[in-house]
């Protein structure tokens, strides 16, 4: 065993509370941090504090920004050791997953020093301002605009709205795509702006999905004033930054799907419980789904091995996002099919809580192939960037 692995193992042994060594029992146990952070237990708070103190919430980020400063192979070892003891993620965070990497690539020294340490420690919770009602798949058609205050050129004034902002109602800051140059071409007039959700003029309305309440919100900006220093990269560089961030998001979605699948009750166990394993057609569908999940997991692993030297997710993130979400839809569909009449409940009475959850999960899964870039957009990206097929209509 390497020295580093031994060190990690000893530290985890001493510092990971026992109650943090099992999978979360539902989203209520997740830790998102932020100014209004809620911890479901003292252990959860302790675990975050200890990990953040070592910078291990962001293992590969530089130590100067509060990160762990680990080399890729060390990060792999840390990850393996965390898995070995079934350790929970100390912090769920769009800051860690999405904003951090792009700040490291595109942010100013001041921006990194200001935001990264707070992300590492979970002090500031971020949300993402990308899609708009008229700009879904065609994200670059966004119309939320930021103009310089004529009387104060160190301030942008933001007007417009964003949709599908996850947890906007609970977030402290937003990273947001805005149009700063109406005269530039569609892709070149966009900038990447950071601002505090407590700024006057920001308002948030939650969105209800077919599965019920959701973390998604619609967010409105009415003359929101943002310091010019909060623009990441150059004005007009927003689209480049957005694309980099989307790759991180896609890879993340695929990984999250894979993890969630692994934690579900196995399909065959569920089929046995509902006494339908004897139905050869259902049994074959169960096996197809199991085999596809196996092959998908192997593919994620292969891709991780191949990409390890590269450090950045490549175009294969589209393939992963596409396949992972479509597979999840298929699995959720199969679960309600297995449950039969028990898989069509909406509320009590008449249905058990886990049966109702089954149905909500199934309905929720339909959004998987839309959020984070539709399956159609992923297919476009694969066809054009991976397969080199000519640019027809995008």
């Amino acid at each position, binding site marked *: 065993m390497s020295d580093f692995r031994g060190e990690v193992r000893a530290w985890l042994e001493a510092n990971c509370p026992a109650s943090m060594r099992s999978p979360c029992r539902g989203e209520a146990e997740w830790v998102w941090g932020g100014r209004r952070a809620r911890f479901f237990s003292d252990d959860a708070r302790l675990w975050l504090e200890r990990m953040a103190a070592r910078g291990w919430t962001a293992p590969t980020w530089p130590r100067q920004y509060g990160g762990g400063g680990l080399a890729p192979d060390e990060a792999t070892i840390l990850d393996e050791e965390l898995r070995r003891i079934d350790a929970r993620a100390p912090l769920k965070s769009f800051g860690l997953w999405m904003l951090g990497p792009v700040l490291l690539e595109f942010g100013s020294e001041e921006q990194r020093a200001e935001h990264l340490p707070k992300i590492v420690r979970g002090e500031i919770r971020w949300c993402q301002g990308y*899609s708009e009602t*008229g700009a*879904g*798949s*065609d994200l670059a*058609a966004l119309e939320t605009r930021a103009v310089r205050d004529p009387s104060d050129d160190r301030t942008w004034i933001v007007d417009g709205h964003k*949709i*599908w902002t996850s947890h906007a109602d609970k977030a402290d800051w937003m990273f947001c795509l805005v149009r700063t140059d109406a005269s530039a071409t569609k892709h070149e007039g966009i900038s990447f702006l950071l601002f505090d959700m407590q700024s006057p003029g920001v308002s948030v309305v939650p*969105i*209800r*999905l*077919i*599965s*019920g309440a959701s973390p998604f919100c619609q967010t409105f900006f009415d003359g929101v004033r943002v310091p010019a220093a909060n623009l990441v990269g150059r004005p007009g560089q927003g689209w480049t930054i957005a694309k980099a961030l989307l790759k991180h998001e896609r890879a993340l979605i695929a990984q999250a799907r894979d993890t969630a699948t692994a934690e579900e009750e196995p399909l065959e166990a569920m089929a046995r419980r*509902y*006494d*339908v394993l004897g*139905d050869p*057609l*259902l049994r074959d569908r169960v096996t197809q789904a199991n085999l596809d999940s196996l092959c998908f997991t192997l593919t994620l692993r292969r891709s991780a091995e191949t990409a390890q030297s590269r450090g950045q997710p490549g175009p294969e993130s589209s393939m992963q996002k596409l396949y992972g979400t479509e597979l999840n839809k298929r699995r959720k569909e199969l679960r*309600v*099919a297995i*449950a*039969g*009449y*028990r*898989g*069509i*409940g*909406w*509320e*009590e*009475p*008449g*249905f058990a809580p886990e049966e109702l959850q089954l*149905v909500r999960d199934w*309905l929720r899964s*339909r*959004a998987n*192939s*839309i*959020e984070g870039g*539709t*399956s*159609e957009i992923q*297919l476009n990206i694969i066809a054009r960037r991976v397969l080199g097929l000519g640019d*027809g*209509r*995008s």
Partner: protein
Amino acid sequence: MAFVLDDVEEAMRDTARKWTREHAPVMQLRALRDARDTVGFSRAGWRELARLGLAGVTVPERWGGAGLGFAALGVVVEELGRTLATLPWLSSLMGTEALLGGASEAQRQAHLAAVCAGVRLMTLAHDEGHRHSRALPSTTATRSAGGFVLRGTKVMVLDGHVADAFVVSARDGEVTALFVVAAGARGLGIERSQVVDSRNAARLTLDGVTVREADRLGGAELLDRVLDRATIALSAEMLGSTVELFERTLLHLRTRRQFGVPIGSFQALQHRAAQLFCEIELLRSVVREALVAVDEGRSDVPRLACAAKARASDTFALCAAEAVQMHGGIGVTDELDVGLFFKRARVTAMLFGDAPYQRDRFARLEGY
């Protein structure tokens, strides 16, 4: 020309379409759901529709019905399917078909006129497990003085929470028998089930319910007759829902713009829409054939019931999945009706047996 609507049917369709859009729009389903309405449909609407003849479309005029056939019924329920109406026409149909197919003169006298008038609701209570089955029920009918005692549990009893009477299937020894049970019968427990598509259903517990010999209607053959006809009628409703949803999706494809063009100009979506169109055309053909076959008293009604329902289940589900995906983000919000169709597709697929069940039964009926 069995496939072409005749003038009477054309007129019925226009009336039904106008009526449903005014009195049972999708908005009504949403309102009932959000208000957690304890009935789950508009009683006034149902009585109104009964006055127009729907509660007894297939019941001869001498019993108070409209004396029309299944082809006519299909025309109307296709329109109800377009607005996802939760009116209790299907449960009512099962009640009247059970009475017409297996009841004595006295029983018909006792129930039919009130059912056709929409003031009395009778439904079938048959399913027991996690999915539809036509095997011998587990609910038992034990002979006792002057009648039977029923014990067992029934699930997915359509409109069971407000029905006035039930046609309950039970095993009498090794054969299936159907019995009329009043909603107020001693030993009968009724619990509403909150189903995802807001269609109304209930769970019954029969804890020693006594019925008279005269309450017995018939056996497995009658049950098959009722279920086959209900299956065909439900397929017609599913056709209506599918067509409506497809039309809404086409409208979205024509009007929603991304990348400077309507998204319906993207070839990948065009091809998927065209494939869906083909599947729906086939559904339309088989539903019509099945309805006409009932009216013609043909022997292939059971097989056509399987054919229609298998295709209706698969095609509605496909259309619903495509509709949600093609609508994009808005398609998964509760705000848009598309999600309501998506939910209805799942529930109707399970009712009376899903597509694999129907195919299995079709194969058995064909002797393989």
